[in-house]
């Protein structure tokens, strides 16, 4: 992947979405060298967290990162996040409020620590940060102010739209069934509970404009997006002209009122693909639906799924396994950047990123 060019000027805001075929990460510049990182994925070519790699290449020092948000604990969103936290020790670390309870942290302890063997990599990453980071650890839920500052004479605020209180309760009930209750109970691997109502969707307000980062939040009853679009505080925020589409563009990650209540008409959008065996996102239908709503949409990688292994291995594998596809089939980044006060975003595509 080529150079990213120069970093943003002090009066420019940007959000860059990184994505291999599995995983995503976001770097947001609020102006004046103030950075927010959301989630983490690993660049397949150099093994570094993608955001860290980006910041290094545009000569941004770790001290400029003021906050790191782990929007949820799923493996594809937090790979390398403990390294991010380690490299940016002055940044606050924010995780979903579903963990703000003894069951939540017990989940992290059970599946992320070495108390028992079955560490799930996502829980392990979060556990590593929460158990060792020196201070500045926070939970975020619906309406939490993740970050506030005056930058370039503007009041900037990063607000969490989710998870709601109901979603937290729902998640904890589900998580409870995976917590060890009594000796002799089986140690199970912690699955990624579906649908995802625990993710932290984030609104970044620049004053006269905003961006919406949808994480993997899905719509489910009155727990996910439905709760957000019916929350007067969320709906009352500045409408966003740029949107990181939730849940890889899936139908379950969509709600019609996201587009009408939270976004400007004909916003720009970006998303990452997700290769998952039989079900790859976004589907053809998803792409059509998204393109009908936005001015333009971009995806971080082409998700060309051709298997990448020696022929004899592939032959043997396909005797047993169908729809074999490479996960990190390409790596790309989509950057939206503009000067504060401007209406139009400049879009730049890197690596395998392309129009949807």
């Amino acid at each position, binding site marked *: 992947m080529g150079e990213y060019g120069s970093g943003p000027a002090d009066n420019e805001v940007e959000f860059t979405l990184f994505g291999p075929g599995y995983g995503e990460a976001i770097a947001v510049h609020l102006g004046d060298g103030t950075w927010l990182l959301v989630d983490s994925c690993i660049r397949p070519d150099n093994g570094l967290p993608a955001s860290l790699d980006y910041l290094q290449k545009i000569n941004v020092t770790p001290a400029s990162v003021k906050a790191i948000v782990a929007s949820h604990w799923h493996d594809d969103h937090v790979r390398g996040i403990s390294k991010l936290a380690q490299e940016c020790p002055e940044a606050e670390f924010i995780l979903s409020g579903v963990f703000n309870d003894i069951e939540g942290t017990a989940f992290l302890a059970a599946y992320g620590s*070495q108390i*028992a*063997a079955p560490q799930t990599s996502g829980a392990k990453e979060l556990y590593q940060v929460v158990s060792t980071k020196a201070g500045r650890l926070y939970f975020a839920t619906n309406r939490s102010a993740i970050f506030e500052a005056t930058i370039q004479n503007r009041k900037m605020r990063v607000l969490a739209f989710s998870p709601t209180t109901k979603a937290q309760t729902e998640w904890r009930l589900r998580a409870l069934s995976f917590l060890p209750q009594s000796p002799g109970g*089986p140690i199970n691997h912690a699955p990624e509970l579906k649908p995802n109502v625990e993710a932290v969707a984030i609104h970044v307000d620049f004053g006269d404009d905003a961006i919406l980062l949808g994480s993997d939040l899905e719509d489910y009853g009155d727990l996910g997006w439905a709760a957000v679009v019916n929350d007067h505080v969320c709906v009352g925020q500045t409408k966003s002209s740029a949107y990181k589409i939730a849940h890889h563009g899936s139908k379950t990650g969509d709600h019609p009122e996201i587009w009408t209540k939270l976004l400007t008409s004909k916003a720009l959008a970006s998303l990452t693909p997700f290769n998952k065996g039989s079900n790859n996102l976004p589907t053809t239908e998803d792409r059509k639906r998204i393109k009908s709503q936005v001015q333009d949409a971009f995806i971080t990688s082409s998700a060309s799924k051709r298997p990448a292994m020696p022929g004899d291995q592939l032959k043997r594998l396909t005797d047993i396994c169908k729809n074999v596809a490479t996960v990190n089939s390409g790596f790309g980044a989509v950057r939206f950047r503009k000067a504060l006060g401007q209406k139009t975003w400049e879009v730049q595509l890197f690596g395998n990123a392309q129009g949807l």
Partner: protein
Amino acid sequence: MSATIEISSSAIVAVGNFNPPIFTPDWLERNKLIGEDDAEGARKDPGLVISPQVTRFETELFALQVLERQFALTSKGPLHPMLKDLAIGIFTLLPQTPITALGLNFQAHYKLSDEADYHKIGDILAPKEIWRSLFPGENESVGLMSLTMGVDPYKRDDKGKKIGDRKSFTVQPSGKVPRGVFFAVNDHHQIDDERRGKDVTSAEYAVKITDTLWQKTWDESMHVFASIIEQCLAK
């Protein structure tokens, strides 16, 4: 590479105090560490021994031998991380078992594509000139039987004692594979009070070592074995 791996295996060996009659196929099955088919296979193993001094049996995928002072779990068939899982499961079930040392062992037999390469490796690892000068006769042949290298940790404490344990690598002509080279690594870990800390039992520490290092040692050993062959042949 002009060598292919033909046989690979692993063994997890612990030294300590064990009660052999505990480690039966029934016990493993009851604690869900092996499935019913594996347990049945073990029960039917003609080599099955359960006694106060030794328990020993095999399944399709592993062989277990427990003596009063030694525990050894060895892979059979294709090498699998299941071996590591089983060791972890067993040590987890017996957290009070005193274990004083743990060894992660990996072995492999590589077949060389031709005779010249096979001999070249032996000659590079153990140059014969000195030996030939001492035994030059037509009726005597000098050859390498076994070479073991120790890789010791560099750091020392204030008293000059090594911090960490030795890894030993062994190279021998293969007795299993024609034109083959046998490699073995023993990644030894001493388990003492100082290392494990007071809140962790020695068995729990053994779990930690196995969980964190088994895969890493496997990867490293394969890399070392292949590198030795490559570097020897490149000379």
